């Protein structure tokens, strides 16, 4: 585990910056046409932890992250098929292997329940101990694909139903179905979702980032479709668009990861920024600090200026 915010003096910081600037200059001479990332407003990196490996506290393909109000971080490792709970200091507190050997999505529900999607199934875990509480039956026998917490409690899930359509389900903290929107994406776009990601903002508007339609779909709290959009350089429908995660902060910004880029879009679809960096799972805490996974590490950033 390493912490970047280490004891480096101001003078050393200046020295590092000069050296890096010179190194960057030398690199730009060697590859003069290399594209430059736009100037960033990503907040300062506060903390990072994680080591590549298969040991209990290590990470292989950590592509999903959630954070609770106490600062505990939950990770889903797709390859190892397990979830881990880390303290705010990056100390491993609990590990659980999922039943289907693959993690596809996870969400922390405010009452202390961790919802985990594993190869089309949805399970509930006690967030503190990661002890399995039970499986959530899908409405109509569909397959669970993605999940996100709702600010007022409970979760929202995206499913593929048996008749090759897609549904959005609202579940309470016990996993009971409150209501289901049938064919929600398909009705708006004409195609069903593939490898979707979902997030909900503070007002209950929800957003589905869909790798099938290459777009982010925005819905109001009642599930009415509002609009679709892409991220900087990739308008809706661009087949080169990739989604690996999505989250929303308290200031009306959607953070969208695209494997090798981290993008910022306003909740109504206006592109803001794009950063060239490996990013997969995304989560935001109550302070609008951003958590980004790059498979073998988790980075925590201060809230940047919008």
């Amino acid at each position, binding site marked *: 585990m390493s912490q970047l915010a280490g004891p480096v003096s101001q003078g050393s910081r200046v*020295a590092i910056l000069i050296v890096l600037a010179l*190194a960057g200059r030398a690199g730009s001479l*060697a590859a003069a046409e290399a594209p430059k990332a736009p100037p960033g407003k990503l907040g300062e990196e506060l903390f990072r932890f994680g080591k590549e*490996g*298969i*040991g*209990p506290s*290590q990470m292989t393909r950590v592509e999903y992250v959630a954070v609770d109000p106490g600062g505990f971080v939950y990770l889903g490792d797709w390859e190892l098929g397990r979830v881990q709970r880390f303290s705010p200091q990056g100390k491993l507190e*609990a590990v659980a292997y999922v039943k289907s050997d693959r993690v596809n999505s996870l969400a922390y529900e405010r009452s202390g329940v961790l919802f985990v999607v594993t190869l089309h199934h949805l399970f509930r875990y006690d967030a503190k101990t990661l002890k399995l509480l039970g499986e959530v039956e899908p409405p109509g026998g569909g397959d669970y694909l993605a999940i996100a917490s709702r600010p007022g409690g409970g979760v929202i899930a995206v499913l593929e139903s048996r008749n090759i359509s897609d549904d959005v389900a609202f579940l309470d903290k016990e996993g009971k179905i409150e209501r289901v929107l049938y064919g929600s994406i398909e009705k708006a776009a004409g195609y069903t979702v593939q490898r979707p990601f979902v997030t909900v903002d503070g007002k209950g508007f929800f957003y589905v980032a869909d790798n099938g339609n290459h777009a982010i779909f925005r819905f109001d709290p009642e599930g009415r479709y509002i609009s679709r959009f892409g991220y900087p350089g990739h308008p809706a429908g661009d087949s080169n668009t990739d989604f690996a995660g999505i989250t929303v902060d308290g200031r009306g910004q959607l953070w969208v990861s695209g494997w090798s880029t981290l993008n910022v879009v306003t909740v109504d679809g206006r592109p803001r920024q794009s950063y060239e960096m490996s990013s997969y799972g995304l989560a935001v805490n109550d302070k609008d600090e951003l958590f980004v996974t790059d498979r073998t590490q988790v980075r925590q950033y201060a809230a940047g200026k919008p």
Partner: protein
Amino acid sequence: MNLHRHFPLLLLLLCAAGCAGSGVATRPPAPAPSNKVAEPPAEDSLEPAEPAMDDAEPEAPAPEAPSQDVLLLRFKGTGKDLGTMTQSALVAVDPQGFVYTADAGRVLRFTPEGKFASGFSTGEPPCQPTGLAADRGGIVYVACGGRLLRYEGASGKLLGEVRHPDGAGFFHVAPRPDSGVLVSWRNAQRDDFVLVAFDGTIETIHRNAVAGASGQAAGDVLVAMDGRRTIYAAVNPLHAVCVFKLTGEYVNRFGSEGEDPDQFSGPFTGLAVDGQGQIFVSDAKGVSALLGEDGRFLRRLETKGTGLAIDDDDALFAAAGTEVAKYRVEPPPKKD
């Protein structure tokens, strides 16, 4: 690193690297020294080098690179009123870094810095433990005389006994990556792998695991489990490490009896796996590091450890006699 002191040097190095990469055609760097018999081609020759065919000696194996395993800590297993470990062949480490050793009738607990913290007796009459492990919840499991006892590690309080439906026969214990332990069990008829949950209940028994796969009696089996939940079993009659899936399905085995580096000699006394895909096996020769995916011999550690354990940071603990040593071990070679 003191960046103030090294800044001019860094600057010079980076500038040189930048100039070299800025479009000026340069020769590639000279090749590293090699043990090859053939002469390298002349600098401007377009002809490939001819291998030396006549009088060529068989290529000697490349000399082993010096090991980068580093001794971090060594401490004596002495516990005040409990005396000093005399025959400690077992070691365990919990997620908080506390280290446990065991010999006849007692378990000693040490801080991560190697200071004695506490100890407890495993009852009368004292028996020689054959297995010792600490799970992720800080529960210490001791296999002794075929029984498997659970203790609260910090206090030494006995929590209970794990009972196999077919009676005593527990032998070796290893931590599971989530919680609970993996235990080997045997009687006169068969050998089992037993998966014990965090609360001491038996989750799964893979019956006749090794003998069922190998067709011969397994005897005392040492076990370990990695982060993929692959089960490793060091089996004395086979002089081999056998690999099983979590389901108990046999996958592979590697090793044989002999004096070559990749062979085993004498009874196995320790088995552990790290998070980087390495297996550590101790026998009469010492501690061998093997690559988990294919059993390839990597190197021999300069330690006389018998009992082995790995912590969350991939440090290796080796117990031998009255001492425990902690090593930062070299990671396995990276794949091309």
